[in-house]
C-alpha cells in the first residue's frame, strides 16, 4: 500500500516540476505553449542515454538533460519570439514543434526510434525526487519574486507599458521559456529513471495540454495554485478509480467550466501563505472606503 502511494507521489512530484516550469512561462509570462512535452522528452532521453550508454553520474545526467532541453527551447524560441508572434500563432508553432520533435525521436538511431529505450537504471526514488522537487519550488519562487519575475508579469499584463519600463520583451520571454524548458527537462530525466523505460509515444501533445490545464486550473499568477492543481489531478482520479478516457473528458469539461465560471483558477493571483490562511478565519476585515476625490474617509 505504501509502495502504491509512493508511486503516485513520485509521479505527482515529477509532474509538479514540469508544471512549475509552465507556471513561469504561461502563468507569469502569459505565453501559451502546447509543446512542452518535447522538452520533457529531450531531458528524458538525454539523461537516459548518458547514464545507460556512457555511465554518467545520475545527478550530472539530470542537469545535462535539463540543459539540453533548455537549448532545444532556444531553437524554437529565438525565431518565433523574435518575430513577435501573437498568442495563437505562437501556440500553434509550439504544437507543431512538439509533434515534429517526437517524429524526429522516432527516427533517430541513438534513441532507438519508436521502440524506445528499455533497461534504464531506476535511480529516482521518493527521497531524491522529494528533495529535488523542494529545491525546484524554492528556485521557482525566487525567480518569481525577483526582478525577473516582475518583468515577466509586466510583459504579460501590458506589453507596451512594459517596454516603456525598459523591459526587452524578447529577452524576458526567451528567459522564461528557457527556464521552463530546463525544469521540464529535469522532470523528464527523473521520469525516465523512475519508469526505467521511455519511448516517443509517451511524450504527446496531450501531456503538454495537461501541464497547461494544471496551470490554468491552479491559477495563472500563482505558484502554489498549480502545485495544488497538479496534486489534485494526480490523486483524485486515482481515488475515484476513473478510467483513463473519462479522466480526459472531465479535464476538458473542467477547463471550460473554469474559464466560464472562475477564470482566475483556484488561487488566482494569490499564494497559500500563513497570513492568507489566517485571513480566512478573521471575521472583521478592514475596509477601504475611498470617496470620489480620493481621500480616505
Amino acid at each position: 500500500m505504501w509502495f502504491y502511494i509512493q508511486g503516485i507521489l513520485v509521479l505527482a512530484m515529477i509532474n509538479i516540476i514540469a508544471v512549475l516550469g509552465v507556471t513561469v512561462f504561461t502563468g507569469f509570462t502569459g505565453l501559451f505553449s502546447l509543446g512542452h512535452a518535447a522538452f520533457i522528452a529531450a531531458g528524458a532521453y538525454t539523461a537516459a542515454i548518458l547514464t545507460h550508454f556512457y555511465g554518467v553520474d545520475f545527478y550530472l545526467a539530470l542537469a545535462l538533460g535539463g540543459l539540453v532541453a533548455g537549448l532545444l527551447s532556444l531553437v524554437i524560441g529565438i525565431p518565433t519570439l523574435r518575430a513577435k508572434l501573437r498568442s495563437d500563432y505562437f501556440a500553434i508553432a509550439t504544437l507543431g514543434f512538439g509533434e515534429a520533435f517526437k517524429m524526429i525521436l522516432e527516427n533517430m538511431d541513438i534513441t532507438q526510434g519508436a521502440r524506445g529505450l528499455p533497461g534504464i537504471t531506476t535511480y529516482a526514488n521518493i527521497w531524491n525526487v522529494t528533495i529535488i522537487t523542494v529545491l525546484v519550488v524554492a528556485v521557482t519562487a525566487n525567480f518569481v519574486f525577483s526582478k525577473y519575475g516582475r518583468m515577466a508579469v509586466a510583459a504579460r499584463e501590458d506589453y507596451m507599458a512594459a517596454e516603456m519600463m525598459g523591459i526587452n520583451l524578447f529577452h524576458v520571454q526567451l528567459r522564461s521559456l528557457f527556464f521552463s524548458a530546463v525544469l521540464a527537462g529535469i522532470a523528464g530525466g527523473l521520469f525516465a529513471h523512475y519508469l526505467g523505460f521511455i519511448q516517443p509515444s509517451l511524450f504527446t501533445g496531450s501531456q503538454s495540454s495537461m501541464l497547461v490545464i494544471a496551470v490554468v486550473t491552479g491559477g495563472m499568477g500563482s505558484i502554489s495554485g498549480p502545485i495544488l492543481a497538479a496534486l489534485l489531478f494526480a490523486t483524485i482520479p486515482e481515488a475515484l478509480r476513473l478510467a483513463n478516457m473519462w479522466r480526459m473528458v472531465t479535464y476538458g469539461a473542467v477547463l471550460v467550466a473554469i474559464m466560464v465560471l472562475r477564470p482566475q483558477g483556484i488561487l488566482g493571483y494569490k499564494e497559500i501563505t500563513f497570513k492568507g490562511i489566517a485571513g480566512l478565519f478573521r471575521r472583521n476585515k478592514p475596509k477601504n472606503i475611498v470617496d470620489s476625490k480620493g481621500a480616505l474617509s
Partner: protein
Amino acid sequence: MANILETKNLTKFFGGIVACNDLSFNVEEGTIKGLIGPNGAGKTTIFNLVTGVYKPTGGEILFQGQPIGGRQPDYVVKAGITRTFQNIRLFKNLSLLENIVIALDLKNTDYHIFGALVRGLAVRRKEKDLRRKALEFLDIVGLADRPHDRADSLPYGLQRKLEIARALALEPRLLLLDEPAAGMNPEESLGLADLVRKVKVQFDLTVLLIEHHMDVVMELCDHIVVMNFGEKLAEGTPDEIQNHPAVLEAYLGEDYQRA
C-alpha cells in the same frame, strides 16, 4: 543650453496617411516645452516616434546628440527618456507599489539571474531597499498611504499621478507627458502643474508636454510648439503663441482673449 532632444525633418507615413511631415524642432535641456495642436495633429505620433513605438519613415531624432530614431522602446528608456500615455497604461491588476517597483527595477537591481535564483542576503537587502524607495516615489505624488491597493481602484486623476511617479522612478533625463491633465477640473489641473514643476526641479528634468488645457500649458511651459496636420505651425514663447495669427485661427479660436 544644449538641446536634449532634436528632430530633423521627421516624417511618418501610415500607408497613404501622413501623420508627421518634415517636422523639425528642438527641446532645450532644463526647460518645459509644450506641444499643442488640434486632435489628430500628430502629437502623440511624435511621442511614439521618439520612444520607439513607431519607426520613422524619414528624418532623424537625436537625444543628447545621439541618433535614436527607429530604436526599440527599451533602448530609448534606458537612454533616459520616459513617458506617460494618453490612455493611461498602468499595470491595472497590480498594486500601486508593484507598479513603481517594476519601474525601479531598471536602475536599482544590479543582481544577476543566478543571484536571483539563490536569493542570498545581498539580493534580499536590495529587494527591501526597492520597496522603501518605491514608497518614497509614491509619497511624491501623495499616494504612499495605500501602497497595496490595485492600480485600477484609484480615481482617474490619481491614476495619472501614479503614472507620472512610475515614469519618474525610471530616472529619466527627459520626461514626455501625454495629456496629463486630461479629465481634470481646473483645481486639479493647477495641482498637476505644481507637481510637474516640483518634480522637474527635484529630479533636474527636461519635460515635453502634450496638453489641451491651455491654462496648464501657458502656466508651465517656457516654450511651445504648435502642430497641425502633422506639420509645425508655429514655435515660440507662450506670449508669442497666444498672439500668433495662424495659431489663433487654426486652434485657439479667434475669440480667445488673454486674461
